[in-house]
């Protein structure tokens, strides 16, 4: 059996890679990809804890399913926003989208 620690370190590393993408990338779609990596890392943690601690209670898997739904909603709204911004400004670089800055 895989030790629980391997899974947790794997998820932590994946989360930090996603965090780096979110903080460092310029392109807004690349930032969304970083968020996807972070959500996946969280899901790996949830499923790992479900399997290793309470496999008879399905709460961990239910939580992962809810995260799936939230991720789908977030991507749909986020990409719609970027397409709308691109239509007006011809760019989706995160540092050039400053219409809401006063």
């Amino acid at each position: 059996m895989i030790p629980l620690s391997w899974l947790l370190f794997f998820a932590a590393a994946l989360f930090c890679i996603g965090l780096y993408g979110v903080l460092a990338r310029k392109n807004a779609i690349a930032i969304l990809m970083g968020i996807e990596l972070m959500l996946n890392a969280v899901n790996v943690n949830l499923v790992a804890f479900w399997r290793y601690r309470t496999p008879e209670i399905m709460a961990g898997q239910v939580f992962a399913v809810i995260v799936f739904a939230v991720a789908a909603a977030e991507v749909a709204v986020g990409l719609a926003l970027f397409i709308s911004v691109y239509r007006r400004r011809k760019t989706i670089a995160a540092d050039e989208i400053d219409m809401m800055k006063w």
Partner: protein
Amino acid sequence: MTPLQIIFILVAAMTLGAGLMVVTARNLVHSALWLILALFGVAIVYVLLQAGFLAVVQVVIYIGAIAILMIFAIMLTRNIATESGPRFSENWSWALVIALVLFGTLAWMLSGWEGIAAQAPAISPRFDTVRELGLALVSPDGFVLAFEVASVLLLAALIGALVIAWDRR
């Protein structure tokens, strides 16, 4: 080492490498393709954890819908996939520091936690996890409220995405 552990190490290395390529690739389409590989690696991890239903959902929703939606968005916003400018913002070194510090802190906290050596209890063959998950999602003593809230959220996101992306001209 058991074969399962070797498979996990290979899959984890593939997923982390693909994740690194996602955040560093210059071409955005390549980023999206590496993202598909990383998501597939996570699906394999779900299989190793005996969460087969989640692995299928991962492939169908993440790879089949989210990654393809991202590729569509990249193609709809022309000229951004191969931008010549820098792909990182100017304070990327701070981002690197924050990510490394967070990983170090997480690793330190995890290694000091006594539950990390937990052994996975065996799942009896009569315990059907997919059936139990379905029951938990719709039973009133389970998570039916969260399930319904998630469906309302998806409907709101559907309408919101339509309204935002509508071309009013």
